[in-house]
């Protein structure tokens, strides 16, 4: 009888430990978790965790990059409001929280672009040649309206063909727009690329039935995409580059755990989810030629091309820390180019790029700010 009690206790405490630890992405700091209450105590629950990528092989055989600090020359735009702002050397494009309109302001010109009846603006892009405004209706039933404005002449146009879908990912860069083409309830779900200067586009990659795509990106090297299937409870996600209707898996990316990718001259920068229960936290990598370099932790959804480099956000990594913007240079170096003020918990919204200018909005216990800086090109 004496032996049974310790066994039962050990089992109970082990179960408590397993359930307390099973969905954290990090081990306990103290290593002592028995006092944490949990209702996940049964062995069934403890073993019924959904499959995660935790423990799956990641490309760790390559080099890793340690960032050096080379802050850009940042200029304050004041405390951020609830609007979104992208700034270029000549223009500022602002979408207020209402999404009812976009305001384009230049040195001697100011224009308002309305979302249209029953619509709100969901994306707004700017480069040296064009502004692109995307508006959709609330329930994503009607085709998105995508308005292009040639800045030199102020000529407005509308993307009509291929006809935009009612929602889905939109990306813009280097004069190329990508967007999803589909009808609600329809079978086809395709990616269109559109040359804004020429006013012409074409439908390219189409997802097979029961698959989809998101996190589209455009850089000088081309279009990147995350494609996924309908595996439950978690989709298998693959990072690809897109050429016409063909996709190619980004070299070095592990199976099913990718989140976003951006093509570079000699490869790609991309992220994976080390823990499926924590989507916001990614591990970033760069594939260059045939090598993979680990760039460290970053925030998913922030990978952005600007000037000659890929940028991504690293939220504060300690209780008392700064959030940072990192640059992966054409020379395969990792640099910290922005840091939040003060110490504490902090994060950045995805940066916005326009004609060699980055706009960054930071949210920090020590104080929010919005800033812009020219980037190397």
């Amino acid at each position: 009888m004496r032996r049974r009690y310790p066994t039962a206790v050990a089992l109970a405490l082990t179960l408590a430990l397993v359930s307390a630890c099973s969905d954290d992405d990090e081990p306990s700091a103290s290593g002592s978790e028995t006092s944490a209450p949990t209702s996940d105590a049964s062995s069934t629950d403890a073993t019924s965790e959904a499959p995660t990528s935790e423990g799956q092989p990641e490309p760790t055989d390559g080099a890793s990059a340690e960032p050096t600090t080379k802050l850009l020359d940042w200029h304050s735009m004041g405390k951020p409001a609830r609007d979104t702002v992208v700034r270029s050397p000549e223009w500022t494009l602002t979408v207020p929280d209402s999404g009812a309109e976009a305001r384009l302001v230049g040195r001697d010109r100011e224009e308002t672009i309305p979302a249209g009846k029953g619509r709100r603006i969901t994306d707004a892009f700017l480069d040296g040649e064009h502004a692109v405004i995307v508006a959709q209706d609330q329930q994503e039933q009607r085709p998105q309206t995508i308005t292009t404005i040639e800045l030199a002449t102020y000529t407005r146009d509308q993307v009509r063909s291929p006809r935009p879908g009612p929602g889905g990912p939109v990306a813009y860069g280097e004069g190329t727009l990508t967007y999803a083409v589909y009808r609600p309830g329809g079978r086809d779900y395709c990616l269109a690329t559109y040359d804004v200067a020429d006013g012409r586009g074409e439908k390219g990659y189409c997802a097979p039935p029961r698959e989809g795509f998101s996190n589209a990106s455009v850089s000088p090297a081309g279009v990147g995409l995350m494609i996924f299937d309908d595996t439950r409870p978690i989709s298998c996600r693959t990072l690809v580059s897109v050429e016409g209707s063909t996709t190619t898996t980004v070299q070095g990316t592990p199976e099913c755990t990718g989140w976003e990718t951006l093509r570079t001259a000699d490869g790609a920068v991309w992220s994976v989810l080390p823990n499926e229960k924590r989507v916001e936290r990614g591990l970033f990598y760069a594939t260059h030629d045939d090598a993979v370099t680990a760039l460290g932790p970053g925030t998913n959804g922030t990978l952005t091309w600007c000037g000659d480099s890929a940028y991504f956000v690293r939220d504060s990594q300690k209780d008392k820390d700064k959030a940072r913007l990192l640059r992966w240079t054409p020379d395969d170096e990792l640099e910290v180019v922005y840091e939040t003020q003060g110490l504490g918990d902090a994060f950045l919204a995805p940066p916005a790029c326009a004609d060699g200018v980055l706009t960054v909005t930071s949210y920090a216990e020590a104080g929010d700010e919005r800033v812009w800086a020219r980037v190397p090109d």
Partner: protein
Amino acid sequence: MSRRRTIAIGSLALLLLGAPFLPDGDTPPALETGSAPGVSLADATAGAGTLTPAMRQEIDAVLAAGRTAARATAGARLRPAALVRSQVRCADFEGQRYCLNAGWTASTEDQVVTELARSATSESARSTYREETGDLTLTAQLRQRAALSPAARERADRAELTAAARSVAKVWLLRHQVQGVPLPDGFLARHPEIRTRTASGTTTAASTATSAASADAPRKSFADYPARGRVLRNSEVAEQTRTYWCGPTSMQMIGWGWSHQQHSQQYWAGKLGTTSEGTAISEMVKVTNRYTGWDRAAYAGKYVVLDIKDWSYRQWYVLQMRHTVDYRAPVILHPVLLKKWYPYLDDDASGHFQVGRGYSKNGDRPNLLRYFEPWNQQRFDRSEPYIDRRQLKSAYRAYRANREHFQHNIGV
């Protein structure tokens, strides 16, 4: 290890493991606290209190003002800001302020009305709102109540104010325990519904078990809580089956976590009075109190709608820890679903409900919040992959998402 000690540890472990599995009606389990041997107000919470004559008088006064406003605006189709001014009125219960359609707040009535009027005007200025996941907009909430007959509206207002008045002790306790606000003189004597947990495993009226000195005992701080905590079973999770059912789905998970019996989202939508416009947080709180046992004194006590505008991030996080460890009960999270807070979204969306279920201090790294995410856009289009319904998130991002909601409130 002695046999007696082994049995004691075993009993404690089994109690901890089995505690949340007790069906509604069973004796609440003991919760041993680090501050035992005695009792401490640091662990206390409150059930429903008694409606005092002063409270009745205050409720009558607020309702009388409502009647006056209703007569003045009878038959008129009010603009959103006027709708706010006609319906949002506040009551003072023992020094705490409760505002109809807003919850418990530290703001003045003027501040609440002004801010909500601005939100309502901004809402109506939008050509369309963001993608809706099921949180009732302010204008829709006010119009629903305005559509009632005067008598029905007054009954609804009275019921809301009465429920609020009876939960004032919970609000005082939270402000005391987390924000450090001193309790008023005679508070414990006036509120026998305040219960503390004893080392023997029972709950005791604080007025008899706690001396005046221990009422001022040190509050529990961040450091007093374990490294992590969690409530609700991983398997009792669901995704919303209609675009506007984040409320019923969150309620489904909260109810499921209590009874371990799953009711349909349709069932909870009926209880919540959910329409295609969504669900109000006041209904989420009301239904949690009425149809689950999470509101018992051995758990969270009566759930309230609490404005967190004056809560710092660190206080807000202690509140989450308190709910998990001391209350062992889920939180009704009420964020606005923007991509900048939630990277798994394809589009910015509306206000939203999620189920808060714990935290992780995450060592010396930034704090994390655990929650069930009912929204699964993949169900509705092909631009987002399926993600795990059980998410861990930067607590600071979650706090900012809560703060940015126009009501900046939470169900605790």
